[in-house]
């Protein structure tokens, strides 16, 4: 690296759509990097098709390209933009892999683009497990005995040499994908085959049973100065992916020898790699070290298990946990600065060369959504399955841990709320790692099982078990003695119990407990995170609540403050798009000279960055916490409509306390959310809706179904992202499903509605002021209704919608806005059938499509919402769009063993991308390529079309494929049909039959993509059907899969119109101009 060089233009690669293993943390790191570069007056070009990210906002990078992060497109962008530097470490594995490929192909050299930060050779070294193991061995750092293999046979031999159990990992894979522990030959075969499907190489290593897993986040500058910003300890022992582990920072059970021994090893490693920027080192630490070969006592026995020479999820967590702006510093270091030159942004008094001293404990807890995926395995292990995470801060483990439990889903008040039917179920969940294990641990402790026994089963360190026992003992005491003296109540609060939980135990409401608590003068203290444990006076705005205090670090902001509630953890249905709205709304408050007070608990967000708000509370979005903060701050009011459904759910409770809510009144929000009130509202306004009814008994339900006829859509009220929603096509299916759904939500009745088939779905997003529309946009689903709007492919402007339809939509929206006196953001989902609109849902809050529409229309919807709160919103004049924007969903099925990769009413995508194009076809193609690895060089496809109608409707597309020179492989029924229609194709045997069959065809990776359409109304959740096997094999081999007729047809039409070379390389600004 040329350290004295002044860079003019730098290209930064983003991570694309959110997926399991690569989520919002890279929005945070990329945004910080861009800001760091802008400070140096360097022009920044960003490549990231993730439309919902903050980093792709207009005012951050100079040019943004909503294009796939792959060598093909990045080369084109480099050729056009002529940057002199490239940053690869801020966009996760996606950016890194793309960068390495560009380097390998000589493209960076050709265009004279310098890789900034850590040397490419070092990055490559860390990515090749075998070479890296040799490297570590050479510098005296222990690695687990291991061997690499490129074939199953080699893998078997390696495993036998090392001895079972062995850990198998796929090289070059995200978040431990396809790795696992094998205890025998059979397990080995399964895992190795899976791993080799996605990676050319597997690593077989000694499985370190019940070792501790410890991580260090290390920063090094060009002078060789090194700091370890943070160390972290996994509560779960080795074997569970760190992304799926409960993690604490700093480590709790390490003594000085271990803490600093591993720190020294980290320094040695980053020094040997000449890292410039950030690096993460993961260790396995033996809790009971074996003796040295000479019989002497060994104080420290460890192995390095992984090194990531880039910003990672852990580094985002470390950054949020300590207040050290890792990504910002890493970007400055990549420019050749030394750490001593960079000011500590938090204290403003010290330098970036320091290691934060914490005077609190941080607990990170993953958020899983495994129940959203039918048939997905409940077990967790060395491959990551979680979709998000929360971070909590406390002065004791008990306090932070209980907070994290409440943050994780918003559904549980305590680790003792476990919902186990009986002791047997509890013991079952104790026996293997799963999202429910920690609840089984608490339940076992509460029921008197010894911590030692639990330790021997789970490998969780006794320290953590004793802390959890302290929680369960405290609860047991309360169960015995329900009297709430000041001393008792304070102890409960110190140990992290919520008012609601205490209320549940003593038989009172959370409001009653709150009242008692306030009367007794028990309030949380407001503590600041200052990176130096109070050693220096620092003006920090980074806060948390604790009951272990007698003072507040800050004074109330008062009336000029406005509280903005964030979205909580990312999960299916609530992702980075809500953080985007939250951040934009927060920033817009400046216009009105208001001080923003953000509350959020998601470390992967931009909203929790130190420089986004005037005050940040890293806290839960529960009524209790929000009310405590609001009352302390004496703020003017709260904004609950920009963080998705979670904050929106607080409307009733907050307004009951007479807190001022900006925007639509709570009562009117309820009229949109409560199905009965909502239905009455639509009836009153004479707006059509699919026929529906709530019911409590099956008999009632059947009477209704007889009347409207199947299919019907079944769901509980307060639906979030389609959880527990299902289309039923027959009586048996309905009965089976209702048995399940009613258990899910006893507080609300289950409803069924007529499911309108073959209807179009449209999204209406808007901002209103005093019940009047000020801005709106209409976008269209490419798939028919029946695919969850979060999974659907969406296009703006609409392509197949009459002007008169749009007019009807607008008039309907006007009526609703006026009736509900909507102020601020809202979204209406419409069905359209036979030219007749039906309203299916109104969300009186910012929706998932807000960033998409804001960017498409070049209007900041959240900012307009803020304007509307102050009565200053001006009506937006509609401008005809010059381009088309298409959003595609990103699925993470390949991470979820057993899950059926098919689109349905329940949402299952983990992220989204969107690309601009000169027309619909071009935008669609780019968008699909951004979420899938589409290989234009492969000229064969696999078709498996269920149902006669699907076959007929696909005929034209099949002909197109043939015309484009594709070889069509088709399953027998499909092949028969195509041949009859004179479309040439090759019949391929079903999955169950002998090879070559569909599965071997897919595994050979010969096909460019697979189209698998199921018969409407056929049971979609059986995992033994041919269709399932085809779909599963397709995603497992990372081949694009289409399961929707309309999308498949649109895709093929686009393919016929554009070859890859025809796709425009234009920046966002160029599309707007």
């Amino acid at each position, binding site marked *: 690296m040329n350290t004295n060089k002044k860079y003019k233009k730098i290209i930064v690669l983003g991570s694309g759509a959110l997926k399991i293993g690569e989520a919002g943390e890279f929005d945070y790191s990329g945004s910080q990097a861009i800001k760091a570069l802008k400070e140096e007056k360097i022009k920044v070009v960003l490549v990231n098709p993730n439309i919902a990210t903050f980093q792709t906002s207009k005012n951050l990078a100079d040019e943004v390209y909503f294009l796939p992060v792959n060598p093909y497109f990045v080369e084109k962008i480099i050729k056009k933009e002529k940057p002199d530097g490239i940053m690869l470490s801020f966009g996760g594995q996606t950016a890194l892999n793309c960068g390495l490929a560009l380097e390998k192909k000589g493209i960076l050299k050709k265009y004279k683009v310098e890789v900034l930060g850590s040397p490419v050779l070092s990055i490559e070294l860390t990515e090749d497990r075998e070479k890296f193991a040799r490297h570590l061995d050479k510098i005296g750092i222990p690695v687990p005995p291991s061997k690499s293999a490129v074939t199953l046979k080699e893998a078997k031999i390696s495993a036998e040499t090392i001895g079972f159990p062995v850990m198998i990992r796929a090289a070059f894979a995200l978040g431990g994908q396809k790795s696992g522990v094998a205890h025998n030959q059979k397990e080995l075969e399964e895992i190795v085959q899976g791993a080799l499907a996605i990676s050319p190489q597997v690593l077989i290593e000694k499985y370190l049973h019940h070792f501790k897993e410890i991580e260090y986040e290390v920063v090094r500058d060009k002078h060789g100065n090194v700091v370890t910003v943070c160390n972290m300890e996994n509560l779960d022992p080795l074997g569970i992916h760190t992304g799926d582990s409960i993690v604490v920072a700093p480590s709790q059970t390490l003594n000085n020898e271990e803490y600093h021994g591993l720190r020294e090893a980290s320094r040695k490693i980053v020094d040997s790699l000449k890292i410039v920027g950030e690096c993460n080192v993961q260790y396995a630490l033996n809790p009971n070290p074996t003796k040295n070969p000479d019989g002497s006592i060994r104080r420290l026995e460890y192995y390095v298990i992984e090194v990531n020479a880039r910003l990672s999820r852990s580094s985002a967590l470390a950054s949020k946990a300590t207040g050290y702006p890792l990504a910002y510093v890493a970007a400055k270091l990549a420019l050749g600065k030394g750490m001593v030159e960079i000011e500590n942004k938090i204290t403003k008094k*010290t330098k970036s060369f320091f290691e934060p001293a914490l005077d609190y404990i941080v607990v990170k807890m993953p958020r899983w959504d495994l129940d959203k995926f039918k048939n997905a395995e409940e077990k967790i292990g060395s491959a990551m399955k979680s979709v998000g995470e929360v971070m909590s801060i406390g002065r004791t483990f008990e306090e932070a841990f209980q907070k994290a439990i409440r943050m994780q889903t918003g559904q549980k008040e305590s680790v003792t709320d476990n919902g186990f039917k009986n002791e047997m179920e509890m013991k079952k969940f104790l026996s293997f790692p799963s999202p429910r294990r920690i609840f089984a641990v608490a339940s076992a402790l509460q029921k008197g099982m010894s911590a030692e026994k639990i330790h021997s089963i789970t490998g969780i360190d006794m320290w953590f078990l004793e802390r959890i026992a302290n929680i369960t003992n405290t609860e047991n005491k309360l169960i015995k003695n329900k009297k709430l003296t000041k001393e008792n109540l304070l102890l409960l609060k110190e140990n992290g119990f919520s008012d609601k939980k205490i209320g549940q135990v003593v038989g009172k409401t959370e409001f009653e407990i709150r009242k008692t608590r306030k009367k007794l003068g028990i309030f949380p203290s407001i503590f600041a995170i200052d990176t130096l444990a109070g050693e220096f006076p620092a003006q920090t705005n980074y806060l948390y609540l604790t009951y272990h205090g007698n003072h507040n670090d800050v004074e109330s902001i008062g009336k000029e403050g406005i509280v903005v509630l964030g979205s909580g953890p990312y999960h299916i249905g609530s992702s980075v798009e809500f953080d985007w709205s939250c951040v934009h709304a927060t920033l817009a408050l400046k216009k009105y000279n208001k001080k923003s007070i953000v509350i959020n608990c998601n470390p992967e967000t931009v909203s929790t960055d130190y420089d986004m708000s005037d005050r940040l509370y890293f806290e839960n979005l529960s009524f209790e916490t929000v009310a405590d903060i609001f009352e302390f701050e004496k703020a003017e009011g709260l904004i609950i409509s920009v963080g998705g459904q979670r904050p929106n759910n607080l409307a009733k409770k907050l307004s009951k306390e007479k807190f001022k809510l900006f925007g639509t009144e709570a009562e009117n929000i309820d009229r949109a959310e409560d199905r009965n009130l909502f239905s009455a509202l639509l009836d009153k306004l004479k707006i059509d809706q699919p026929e529906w009814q709530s019911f409590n008994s099956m008999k009632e339900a059947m009477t209704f179904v007889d009347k409207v006829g199947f299919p019907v859509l079944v769901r509980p009220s307060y639906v979030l992202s389609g959880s527990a929603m299902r289309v039923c096509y027959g009586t048996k299916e309905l009965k089976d499903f209702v048995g399940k759904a009613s258990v899910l939500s006893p507080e609300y009745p289950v409803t069924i509605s007529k499911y309108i088939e073959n209807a179009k779905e449209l999204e209406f997003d808007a901002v209103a002021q005093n019940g009047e529309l000020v801005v709106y946009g209409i976008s269209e689903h490419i798939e028919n209704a029946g695919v969850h709007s979060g999974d659907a492919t969406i296009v703006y402007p609409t392509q197949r919608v009459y002007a008169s339809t749009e007019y009807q939509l607008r008039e309907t929206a006007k009526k609703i806005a006026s009736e509900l006196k909507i102020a601020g953001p809202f979204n209406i989902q419409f069905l359209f059938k036979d030219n007749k609109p039906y309203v299916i849902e109104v969300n009186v809050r910012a929706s998932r499509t807000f960033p998409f529409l804001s960017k498409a229309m070049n209007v900041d919807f959240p900012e307009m919402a803020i304007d509307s709160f102050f009565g200053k919103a001006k009506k937006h004049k509609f401008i005809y769009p010059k381009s088309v924007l298409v959003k595609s969903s990103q699925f993470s099925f390949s991470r979820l063993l057993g899950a059926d990769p098919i689109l349905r009413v329940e949402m299952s995508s983990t992220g989204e991308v969107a690309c601009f194009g000169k027309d619909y076809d071009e935008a669609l193609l780019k968008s699909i390529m951004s979420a899938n690895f589409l290989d234009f060089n492969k000229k064969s496809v696999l078709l498996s079309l269920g149902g006669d109608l699907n076959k007929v409707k696909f005929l034209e597309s099949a002909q197109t494929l043939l015309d484009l020179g594709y070889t069509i492989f088709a399953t027998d029924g499909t092949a028969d049909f195509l041949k009859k229609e004179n479309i040439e194709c090759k019949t391929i045997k079903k999955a169950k039959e002998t090879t070559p069959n569909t599965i071997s065809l897919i595994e050979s990776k010969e096909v460019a993509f697979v189209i698998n359409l199921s018969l409407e109304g056929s049971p979609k959740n059986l995992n033994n059907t041919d269709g399932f096997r085809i779909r599963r094999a397709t995603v497992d081999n990372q081949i694009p899969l289409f399961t929707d007729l309309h999308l498949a047809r649109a895709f093929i039409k686009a393919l016929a119109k554009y070859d890859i070379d025809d796709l425009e390389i234009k920046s966002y600004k160029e599309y707007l101009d």
Partner: protein
Amino acid sequence: MQNNKFTKAKLYLKNGETLEAKNFGSIKSVAGEVVFATGMTGYPEALTDPSFKGQILVFTYPIIGSYGVPKKEFWESDKIQVSGLIVSQYIDTPSHHENASTLAQWFKKENIPLLEIKDTRLLTQKLRDKGAMLGKIICKKDIPYQDPNKENLVAEVSTKKIFSVGTGKKNIVLIDCGTKKNIAESVAKRGVKVTVVPWDTDPTSLSFTPDAVIISNGPGDPTKATATIKNVKKLLQKHIPILGICLGNQILNLASGGKTYKLKFGHRSQNQPVLEVGTDKCYLTTQNHGFAVGTIPKNFKEWFRNANDDTNEGIIHQSLPFMSVQFHPESTPGPTDTDWIFDYFLKRANIL
């Protein structure tokens, strides 16, 4: 299970404030200087560091006791050196393979109080803003305040007899002003013999001529160690290589004609950044001192400087092998970044 057995106690500060506390240690009233330390691990090492003699220590890391207390061989001296300890949450259920007793058992055995005061952050902020303060822990009997800096603490904590650590042809004298064990061990590890002598021993009067002399860390005001300063002057005249550590830095400075002063609240942490003057190198260090080098003596130059507050972190002679550092190259507790200081010194002393 968590032990909830405690007695009530109070912490009094000289400025008139009183804080309620739970005492998990010995029921004994003690007085001293209240100071805080921000290290997050290594409490057994810190508590046995003689530099803490006479002080009531507040750990800013709130959860203490988690891995218990190891056997004596892993301590930095043979006993707990602090007069009293204050933590936010005391953990009585330690988990560690080296754990030999709980922290409370240890404190009881050594007859020292161990207090739990929830809001140690508030206490820290007070000590930061007002400076290190005299204080007393009162269990039953009231006792007067006592300023440890007015005493010769070095004499109290120093070894009474001469002993040696390690073997080797070269013999290095370590003047024990309150040394941590790991200084002798770090040097002996490099294949030399270390002879540990009391603080007021004149190394030139020993039966052998030392190949080099190390002045250890120690508690309190360096100007109280007059005998050591006098003896170091002799060493300087005889050109015997000298390495000063912590208090040793101040003593070398005073012996060479420099001056020292008292810091407002001192450096007691494991994350003190020091710059090697004239280079781009920066290290993280463990520190534990309340006094610092003010004026640098003639013929010496600044070797290290604190990156946070620009205070002196070490001096080195322009030409002769006389050098000293304010931080702890032997670490324990803390980062091992500056372990190389021992190699450098021994090389300059022509020993390695």
